[in-house]
């Protein structure tokens, strides 16, 4: 891709971008949210047409005016939100739109389809059941199905957008093995990720986009995480994790023998005021389930929860909020925001009572209040009245934090608050956690990324298979020990 430019209305999304990927290599594309990565890849996939610049494939100039043309030329995109037909079988998904023909006209041969799908899978060494329904598969397996779809089309270039954002550590490693294998077979892979450890580990070349321009492009061997971050944010991040100076006080939160129907039991821990407690564990280990039990989404079946010495009986999120507990959920689109409603409505949704609006809502006062906490959180919005969908991922997350800031919660649970947001916004979230701790809040910080747990938390709890298996002071442990506790029986 040479000299690519693209403008959306007043926004210059890309200006004069040149990007190339060689056969048999993995080229990682890094950049903050809004840097232009997705736009660039959508141009490659024929979803958008560039205002200027050319795309060359094997030295020949191409012009894609529709996604189908790019597919035909051998370019496959695997989006962050996978587009599989959930109720169809693996084989049916792989052959969707290109089913093998049956003997009679207008029929398809299901038998041929399933055998060919199995053959394709075994040819690449994937163990996946072609008869399984996609809805039954783990996210990791769904990625494999997407890859098989691309391989079935005989694609020569595969673009993967944040493939690991919802994978477990084990699944991630398996996906990497697959990607390396595809590279060895001569495919060209474009890999977009926020997880820089992965990028450094996997890529042959790395290009970094900022504000629609390529600011740096080099072989991976010449770059490290610090230098990538430096190029991405365009400023020095000497200390990526802000220093924490909150004074730790008395016990605020006391959880004893907590259990729920979602497979957690015997969970006991305490959090002091001003303390940030990290919660580590593999995906499915029961971290989110602890949050759901405390917050009343899936109420506890046994155990006690006390806040500031007062035992609580929480049966619903409304109870939890009323008692000063906040939960920033892990999936902001599904359980966090009402995206088509105005930003300020999203901020005040659980806070109408706090604002004294139990009977009558006063929109102008609401908007003013929301604007105030929004400014405090540094949310970048066109106006508080703009729909939440108009914000970037990081700003949406800050909007939700603003919500709980307004609620004056005493105990705040953050479930994967930095997932899918850019480096700059991540750092703002870390600073915010520290600021909240300094105000005396008790904070439970759930994360899949060990570096950020170590960078932010005072103590780290470790979950394995629904049980709490570790409670360690951050200064006296190390990532290896935590990983070992989380993963090894």
């Amino acid at each position, binding site marked *: 891709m040479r000299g690519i430019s693209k403008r959306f209305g007043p926004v210059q999304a890309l200006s004069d971008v040149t990007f190339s990927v060689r056969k048999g290599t993995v080229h990682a594309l890094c950049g903050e949210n809004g840097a232009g990565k997705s736009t660039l890849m959508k141009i490659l996939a024929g979803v958008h047409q560039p205002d200027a610049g050319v795309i060359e494939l094997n030295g020949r100039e191409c012009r894609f005016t529709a996604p189908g043309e790019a597919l035909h030329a051998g370019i496959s995109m695997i989006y962050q939100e996978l587009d599989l037909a959930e109720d169809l079988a693996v084989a049916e998904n792989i052959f969707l739109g290109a089913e093998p023909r049956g003997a009679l006209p207008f029929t398809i041969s299901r038998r041929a389809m399933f055998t060919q799908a199995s053959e394709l899978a075994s040819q690449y060494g994937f163990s996946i059941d072609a008869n399984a329904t996609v809805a039954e598969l783990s996210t990791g397996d769904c990625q494999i199905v997407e890859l098989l779809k691309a391989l079935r089309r005989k694609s020569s270039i595969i673009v993967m957008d944040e493939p690991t954002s919802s994978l477990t550590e084990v699944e991630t490693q398996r996906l990497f093995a697959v990607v390396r294998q595809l590279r060895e077979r001569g495919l060209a892979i474009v890999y977009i990720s926020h997880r820089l450890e992965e990028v450094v580990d996997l890529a042959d070349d790395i290009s970094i986009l900022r504000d629609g321009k390529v600011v740096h492009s080099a072989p991976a061997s010449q770059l490290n995480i610090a230098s990538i971050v430096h190029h991405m944010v365009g400023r020095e991040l000497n200390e990526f994790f802000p220093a924490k100076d909150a004074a730790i006080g008395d016990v605020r939160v006391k959880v004893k023998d907590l259990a729920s129907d979602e497979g957690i039991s015997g969970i006991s821990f305490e959090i002091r005021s001003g303390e940030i407690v990290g919660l580590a564990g593999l995906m499915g280990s029961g971290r989110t389930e602890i949050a759901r039990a405390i917050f009343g989404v899936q109420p506890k079946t046994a155990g006690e929860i006390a806040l500031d010495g007062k035992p609580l009986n929480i049966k619903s999120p409304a109870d939890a909020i009323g008692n000063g507990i906040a939960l920033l959920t892990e999936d902001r689109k*599904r*359980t966090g925001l009402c995206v088509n*409603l105005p930003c300020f409505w999203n901020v005040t*949704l659980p806070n*109408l009572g706090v604002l004294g609006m139990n009977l009558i*809502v006063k929109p102008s006062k609401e908007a003013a209040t929301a604007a105030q906490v929004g400014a405090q959180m540094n949310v970048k919005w066109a106006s508080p009245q703009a729909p939440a969908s108009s914000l970037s991922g990081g700003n949406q997350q800050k909007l939700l934090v603003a919500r709980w800031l307004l609620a004056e919660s005493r105990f705040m649970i953050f479930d994967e608050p930095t997932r899918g947001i850019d480096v700059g916004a991540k750092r703002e979230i870390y600073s915010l956690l520290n600021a909240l701790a300094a105000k005396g809040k008790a904070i439970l910080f759930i994360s899949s990324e060990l570096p950020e747990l170590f960078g932010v938390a005072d103590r780290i709890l470790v979950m394995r298979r629904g049980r709490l298996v570790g409670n360690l002071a951050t200064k006296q442990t190390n990532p290896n020990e935590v990983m070992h506790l989380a993963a090894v029986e």
Partner: protein
Amino acid sequence: MSKLIRKLLPFASLLLIFVVVSIKRPDAFLTADNLLNVFRRCSPNAIIAVGMTGIIISGGIDLSVGSMLAFAGMAGAWTMLRMCGDSLTMGGMVVGTTAGVLAGTVSGLLNGLLITRLKLPPFIVTLGTMSAFRGVSYVMNDGQPYNVPNYNYLGDGRLIGVPVSIVIAAVVVVLASLVLRYTPLGRYTYAIGSNRDAAFHAGVNVDWNLTIIYTLAGLLVGLAAMIATSRTVSAQPTAGISLELDIIAAVVIGGASLSGGRGTILGTIIGTLMIAFLRNGCVLLRINDHIQLIVIGAIIIIAVAVDQIARARAK
């Protein structure tokens, strides 16, 4: 710019109908009598459509409003006849009217409880109650109507010169707009329709609010039922057959989204008026009933398509 056009579009379409019919029938259309008559006739629909707007904003649907209208009317008239026999008294009418409104309210409550307690889709629940309410209406008097000869105040009476039914509809419209805009119930209605899970996680008592929304919608159907009963001075078990389609059409023409989270009372009222004036215009222009159906069908599709296109442009 295009946002403004989108907002003005329903008004413009309504105006277009006005202009066309006025030019063709200057003698009959723009007369106070005709206009008041159209308003009076569509006021029960407007009242029901207000309730439907709340339900549709919350992401639901109510297919049972037509049957509910018949049932509430029958219940109200039955009460009057039980109390007074053949000569209706003032007291009997008041009690009967209250009973009819109450019957609608209870029917709405039943819909709400079935939807929230059994966790069933509103489409299914109200498809079932649509049939059941109709059946009850037929069973009540063996398929015969109840005649309530002197019960004509709500349908034909006037309050300081304005037909009572129009006054009631106007009050309902204003109150509902205020509730949607200035109460937590209104706010939660939008939130539940926009993203039910997110609303729940933000502490909104989803089941409670949905039950209230369906109950209030039932109350409004009961009110409309008594106006309709009063207009014909009889309660018909066949009243309101396929009414739900007109109502849903009005709400959708008014810009509400069937997937929830979007819609306004003002839009719904414009949608209701559009359908009413189209009907009236067709009559005045001597377009027959069958063609009317085709025209209204086309308008529904065109209105929503234009709204979608304008929305896509705005993005």
